[in-house]
């Protein structure tokens, strides 16, 4: 059933905090992409699509968050699961390079914190699943190049994922 946005009393502060967290993560993701481009000339994710496919880098669905048919509980669930997935993917990039590791670590912490923000709000609204999601199998990056390419792809997917999220948040922020 359609779950109109207004059926769940989302606090304004939650929407504002989530929006700020999206901007914060996107800013850090852009720093990672810029560094990967400047240092390794890996500037275009589309050039790495085949590799991404072979490595099995998943993308997080946000089908319940489409503006035409927003199902808020489902959307929050997909948002939280997606963030949890990207947290795992960023962890899988461990050892990417000494220069990039601090950026990846901060990005991973911020994504994890955002996932907690969403999860705790779902708990407060009593719409949280009984069990926290568990991390599926992560791609195995077996070379320095694969970790860098994986970094480009994960940052790009995360950016697109957050663009959709930001659109939903702006929709929810409308009075």
């Amino acid at each position, binding site marked *: 059933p359609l779950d109109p946005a207004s059926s769940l009393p989302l606090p304004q502060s939650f929407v504002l905090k989530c929006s700020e967290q999206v901007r914060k993560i996107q800013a850090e993701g852009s720093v990672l992409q810029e560094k990967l481009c400047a240092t390794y000339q890996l500037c275009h994710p589309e050039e790495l699509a085949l590799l991404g496919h072979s490595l099995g880098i998943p993308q997080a669905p946000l089908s319940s968050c489409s503006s035409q048919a927003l199902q808020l509980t489902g959307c929050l669930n997909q948002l939280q699961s997606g963030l949890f997935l990207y947290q795992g993917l960023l962890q899988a990039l461990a050892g990417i390079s000494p220069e990039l590791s601090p950026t990846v670590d901060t990005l991973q*912490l911020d994504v994890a914190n955002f996932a907690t923000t969403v999860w705790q709000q779902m708990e407060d609204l009593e719409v949280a699943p009984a069990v926290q999601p568990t991390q599926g199998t992560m791609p195995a990056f077996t070379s320095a190049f694969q970790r860098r390419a994986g970094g480009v792809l994960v940052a790009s997917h995360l950016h697109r994922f957050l663009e959709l999220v930001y659109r939903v948040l702006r929709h929810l922020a409308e009075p």
Partner: protein
Amino acid sequence: EECGHISLSAPIVRLGDPVTASCIISQDCSLLDPEPQILWKLGAELQPGGRQQRLPDGTQKSTITLPHLNHSQAFLSCCLHWGSSLQVLDQAELRAGHPPATPSNLACFMNLTTNSLTCQWEPGPHTHLPTNFTLKSFRSRGNCQTQEDSIPDCVPEDGQSYCSIPRKHLLLYQNMVVQVQAENALGTSVSPQLCLDPMDVVKLEPPTLWATAPRQPGCLWPHWRPWKPSLFIHQKCQLRLRPQHEKTNWTQVATLPSSVLQHQLCGLPPDTAYALQMRCIRSPLPGHWSRWSPSLELRTAEQAPLVR
């Protein structure tokens, strides 16, 4: 075997409190004199009032009570006359001080450059004793009524009254409880708890101001750019100005969202020099004002000469 041995009621007492010491002289040491008189010195001064007794095993024992120890640190010596000199047989260090006062004025701010939460406090009066401060914190929810994961203690460097919790221990956008504990040999005290979300105490740096040439007389055309590490934070900013080189009060001329990066000010006298400053605060989410920016000095355009 020791010649003499001092034992204390307590090695550390409160300043002004009494301390009792006893000194036992072994038989080997009282060689010449079967009933040697045991003497006490506090620092360099002889202390009267030692009560001496012979123990069943033949050793001599003297006990003394110093009614008020007013030194934060002193040496108590157990001595004997031997020939013409006074021999020191044992020495004990006495320490006196105060239990730690409750640390006060605990305040924290989130540093977006180092990505750490720095908390500072007032340690309270000097205790005269080695006193350890520890910043204790734990994650919480809501208004901090519950305790969730604890965070590793943050131990400041010696003598410092601040400590920084690194990013990896912080859960941003959630409340946490922070508290300072002070501990020395005489006791422990704990500051009141502080309940905060690290992002609500971000320390913003002021924006950068610059200007382009004003287009009309009596106008100024300031531009600004928010502090780069805070670009992801929606802010509102205050602009103020006053005539340059005059110590008159500032006039606040505008409050603007940080996304508006310029503002035209008109209605000012032509060909006049002004100083402008700006500060910003996170908004609508909670935050603290940044400092005012350094002054930007600008001059309004001259009035065009009237051609008759």
